[in-house]
């Protein structure tokens, strides 16, 4: 009986403001830990999501432990904490996870030693350097257009033991070809942060994200990547270990993306709540057919959590 009710819920997510009193109570009691995405949930590019902070404050008030998990390493931790403070949320840096930091934690856990060849943004590289890792990058300029020059740029003898790929506005074919050369060595690891195919960087600008390029490297080297951005399994394992989560179903993943956030939550065995304040519309949610991308619950935004818990603004703005 219970199993069948879960199945029904999985195929048709419920809006959290349409839960019965009993459902509402059992939902609120069903999790201790909340993992939440940031972009598209608290703010969407330049625009703030109205009353988003109220949702998190309500969760904290009823004793839920909050952790933010973003795929955005371009923003520094400081900038992120300041932006949270601006909307009235006091968040500590250790409550925020982004791929640069997850990769640092992963490398420290496996006691990684050696040189890293990295394709990523400056802030991302800074996080790894500060953690004491030795990085190699480039070519950071256009190369002379010949095979001789290509050879000079991609055949490095440096003892690289890991290749790291995340968002790089200057990602180029020589960088990918060079990464592939290092990955031909059996001991060289492939670590990937964000896996987006198309990445929104500002209001009108998208860029092809690191996902397809990581796939090129996986295909050419035959090495499955260790993915430490959402929806990567290795990121999930890292978080579960870090927070000593013994019962994954007692964690709730909140996010605005079907594949990245809901998919990530499902990979980890967390409950999932999709918010429609960012990259996914109600129509897209209703059209989703992949059962691993269908959330347990949905809401217009995290502000609905405050309403559901009987707090915050009464009228829905």
């Amino acid at each position, binding site marked *: 009986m219970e199993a069948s009710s879960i199945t029904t819920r999985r195929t048709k997510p419920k809006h959290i403001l349409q839960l019965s009193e009993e459902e509402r109570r059992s939902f609120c009691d069903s999790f201790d830990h909340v993992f939440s995405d940031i972009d598209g949930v608290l703010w969407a590019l330049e625009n703030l999501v109205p009353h988003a902070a109220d949702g998190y404050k309500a969760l904290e008030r009823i004793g839920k432990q909050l952790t933010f998990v973003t795929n955005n390493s371009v923003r520094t931790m400081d900038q992120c904490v300041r932006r949270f403070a601006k909307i009235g949320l006091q968040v500590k840096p250790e409550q925020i996870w982004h791929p640069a930091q997850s990769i640092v934690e992963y490398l420290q856990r496996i006691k990684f030693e050696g040189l890293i060849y990295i394709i990523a943004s400056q802030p991302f590289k800074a996080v790894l350097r500060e953690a004491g890792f030795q990085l190699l990058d480039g070519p950071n300029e256009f190369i002379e257009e010949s095979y001789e020059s290509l050879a000079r740029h991609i055949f490095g003898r440096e003892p690289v033991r890991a290749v790291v790929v995340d968002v790089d506005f200057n990602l180029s*074919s020589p960088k990918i070809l060079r990464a592939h050369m290092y990955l031909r060595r059996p001991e060289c690891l492939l670590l990937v942060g964000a896996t987006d195919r198309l990445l929104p960087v500002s209001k009108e600008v998208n860029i092809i994200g690191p996902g397809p390029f990581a796939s090129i490297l996986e295909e050419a080297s035959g090495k499955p990547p260790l993915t430490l951005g959402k929806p990567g399994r290795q990121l999930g394992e890292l978080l579960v270990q870090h927070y000593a989560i013994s019962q994954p179903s007692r964690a709730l993943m909140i996010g605005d993306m079907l594949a990245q956030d809901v998919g990530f939550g499902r990979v980890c065995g967390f409950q999932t709540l999709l918010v429609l304040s960012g990259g996914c519309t109600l129509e897209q949610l209703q059209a989703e057919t992949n059962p691993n991308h269908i959330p347990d619950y949905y809401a217009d935004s995290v502000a609905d959590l405050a309403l559901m818990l009987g707090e915050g603004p009464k009228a829905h703005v």
Partner: protein
Amino acid sequence: MNSVKHLKELREEEREEFFDSFNLVFCDCDGVIWYPLRDFIPGSAAALAHLEFRGKQVTFVTNNSISSMKEHIEKFAQQGHLKIDAHQIVHPAQTICDHLKSIKFEGLIYCLATPPFRQLLKEAGFRLTEESGPGIIRSLKDLHEAIYGGEPVAAVVIDVDFNLSAAKMMRAHVQLQNPKCLFLAGAADALIPFGQGDIIGPGPFIDVVTQSVGRQPITLGKPGEDLRQLLLQRHPDVPPNRVLFVGDSLASDIGFARASGYQTLLVLTGGTRLEDVQRLPAGHPQVPDYLADCLGDICGADNR
């Protein structure tokens, strides 16, 4: 082991049957005639002369547009003492140029390829757009300029671009949102033999754009379907089973040629090792009919 016949091991009458079984030869260049971008492989000049002596027509099908047609012809003359006509050489810059002429194309082209490739199109009278914005992107403004700064184009062409970047691919993606914008691809190798092993070829990068825009390019380099059709139409009088395709790549040459029903000869002077062939299960679409250590094996023991 699959049933590949080694040219050296053919008996005299089998060799004669082999030569009688084809009229036309499609022959790759890099890794077959010469080492990639370098000198002739010993024996290959004699082999080409032998094919001519046997009355075979030879057409060179290469994915290399970095050497111009003139450079190809000079290399054949100087190193191989062979007189080769321009019409005997098929390479992506030329096939794309011919295609654009055949449809009387007149618009602006965004061409992600090497300077010689771009030069060939410009000399044929086509207009190419230049990169917009600074080369290296330091800000969102730079990125915006690189993606949206240039003029709209009527065709996107992708071949080997030594400085292909995510921003250029995004500019191509944006232009290709216009369904009228042509999408053409040249060399589409997944891997290219280079140095001591393979490097990633243009194919996977073309695939990224293909997937992001959701439509297929017209691919006029190996192993493109459109080049395959074009080669079939070049010699309508020669049945495919009377064509011998010679190459060094299982994917870009042998698999490509077998899809057309050609006979195939794999040479081991390029990117493929004997183990790679032996690893293929019988019936695999990339198993060649014949195998040779080098093209020179064509001449037989007495001629080498």
